[in-house]
């Protein structure tokens, strides 16, 4: 099927914006993986909570939903720290299957707690800029997309500066490079675990707010698919590599939108796995991942 350049550009821009939300999720997953060497499969549930926190504050206060990032991120950070302390720390180092299984338990708990609080209806919130489109490079783009892309870039730059320039950030990177070495240098690695999980959860919260603001529907059970896509991105980009997550997220967002456009909407969710599986067949450690062993 022939795709005209105009439409192709449009699809790329949709993909960029969709990619942004996945990048925030995938970066969080990678940060946690880097420091703790665990994979939090319940990460999508944190995104879902971020969306619902935004929803609640939005209906109560009527603030501009973008401002509500200031609510969803701190709340999710606190929750992330709690989850790390109660669930993941006790099983750290007891085998890799356990963390997958404990995430399963968390998925059940978080999804259904949310269903009790917010009921299982699909929700949507409307951004104040919903009807505004602007023209960038000759492509019509909703203003919301532009804000979401800018916000994501701002968050990623803030994270970069935190990891590179602050003592705490350096300590975290040291822990992710060599846990024992970091411990010997007097870094409290367990504190790093908590902080990395907190930041990862906070990023998921931000992704949740952006998800809600972008006009996508959400209900308590929607978290699994974005999480899996984020995971696919992490694998494409290589476990633990944050630049990989960003590139992977962009590739993924664009590929997904092209797939919907060419194969049809039924493939929206399955395409992520096709990409994932193809990547894993060629490179079992991901495109940018270091080869293990």
């Amino acid at each position, binding site marked *: 099927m022939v795709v005209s350049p105009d439409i192709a550009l449009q699809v790329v821009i949709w993909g960029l914006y969709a990619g942004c939300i996945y990048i925030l999720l995938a970066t969080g997953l990678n940060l946690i993986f880097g420091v703790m060497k665990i994979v939090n499969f319940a990460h999508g549930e944190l995104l879902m909570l971020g969306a619902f926190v935004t929803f609640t504050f939005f209906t109560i206060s009527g603030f501009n939903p973008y401002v509500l990032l200031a609510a969803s991120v701190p709340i999710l950070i606190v929750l992330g720290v709690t989850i790390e302390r109660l669930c993941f720390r006790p099983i750290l180092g007891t085998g890799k299957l356990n963390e997958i299984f404990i995430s399963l338990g968390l998925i059940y708990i978080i999804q259904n707690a949310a269903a009790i609080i917010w009921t299982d209806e699909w929700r949507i919130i409307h951004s104040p800029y919903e009807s505004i489109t602007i023209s960038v490079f000759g492509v019509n783009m909703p203003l919301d997309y532009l804000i979401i892309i800018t916000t994501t870039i701002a968050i990623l730059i803030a994270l970069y500066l935190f990891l590179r320039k602050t003592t705490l950030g350096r300590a975290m990177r040291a822990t992710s490079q060599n846990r024992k070495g970091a411990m010997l240098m007097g870094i409290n690695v367990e504190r790093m675990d908590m902080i990395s999980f907190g930041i990862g959860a906070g990023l998921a919260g931000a992704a949740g707010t952006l998800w809600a603001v972008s006009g996508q529907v959400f209900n308590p059970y929607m978290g699994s698919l974005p999480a899996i896509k984020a995971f696919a991105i992490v694998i494409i980009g290589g476990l633990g590599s944050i630049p990989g997550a960003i590139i992977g997220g962009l590739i993924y967002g664009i590929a997904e939108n092209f797939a919907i456009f060419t194969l049809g909407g039924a493939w929206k969710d399955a395409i992520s796995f096709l990409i994932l599986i193809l990547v*894993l067949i060629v490179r079992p450690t991901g495109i940018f991942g270091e080869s293990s062993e």
Partner: protein
Amino acid sequence: MQLAALAAAAVIPFLLGANLYILTVLILMLVFIIYSSAWNFLTYTGQGSLGHAAFFGLGGYGSTLIAVATGLSPYITIFIGAGLPALVGLFIGAICVRLKEWFLAMVTFGFAIIIQTLMVSQFSAWSGGWDGIASPRLLSSSIPNYLLIEYYSILAITVLVIVLFAIILRSRIGLAFAAIRENELEARAAGINPVKYRLFAFMTSAYFAGVAGALEIHHMGYITPEIFGVDISFWPVIYSISGGLGTLAGPIVGTIVITLLWDGLQSLGISYARYIVIGILLVLIIIFLPKGLVSLPGRIREWMEKRAKKA
């Protein structure tokens, strides 16, 4: 022990009264015992799957389509139809054989979703799309006590499957599985081909997951693509972990305990909170009882002895 359990399974419909509700619960329990045991079989080689619903569902579709096309009894088509998930399992296994842990978990999870998508899009002419298709019943409901007969026939199949697993695991194959799980490099040095055994485990596990799926579908009389749902993939994981991974009794104990808990909570009128209870139970078991419920009697005995010593 095994005989006692078997005797209990044989008399339980009479003790509880063979009404429709109880028999349905018992039949589904048996189906899920086969399913979780098949899932658990895979973990003997150190592999895990989050997408066994793919095989469960394909077994259901395979058997249904064959039964509809040929008019054979579902009791026969179940074992032919399960060949479909076994083939797909071989294919997925071949792709996954180099992957471990979370990679494998994700890829298997993904396959369940891809297969669901294929069923509702490309293959909807055969599968009926999201609406699904009717499936021949195991036994016609005009036969007196048909559910009771169904229960005993499925019980027989369950026992055969578990005995088969026990035989395989006690043979050289079981030893090879253990060697691969503990240390793949050393296993290879000892002349064991890990790829061959992993594929065998994957295929066997997929086959019996398919048998379980076909049994459930022929019991229900209907199949829709919802059978590939995430829930169906997660149940055998939850059952096996709570019972005890890597033991034959684990999936059986886990299925019985969790199903009873699940249905018990339902009869109390609890819906969402049921999942929360299961989730919390799962987290607690992983943290405090990593070998599952089957290790509970031993743990209690230990604890009693410690107390006795102190006193």
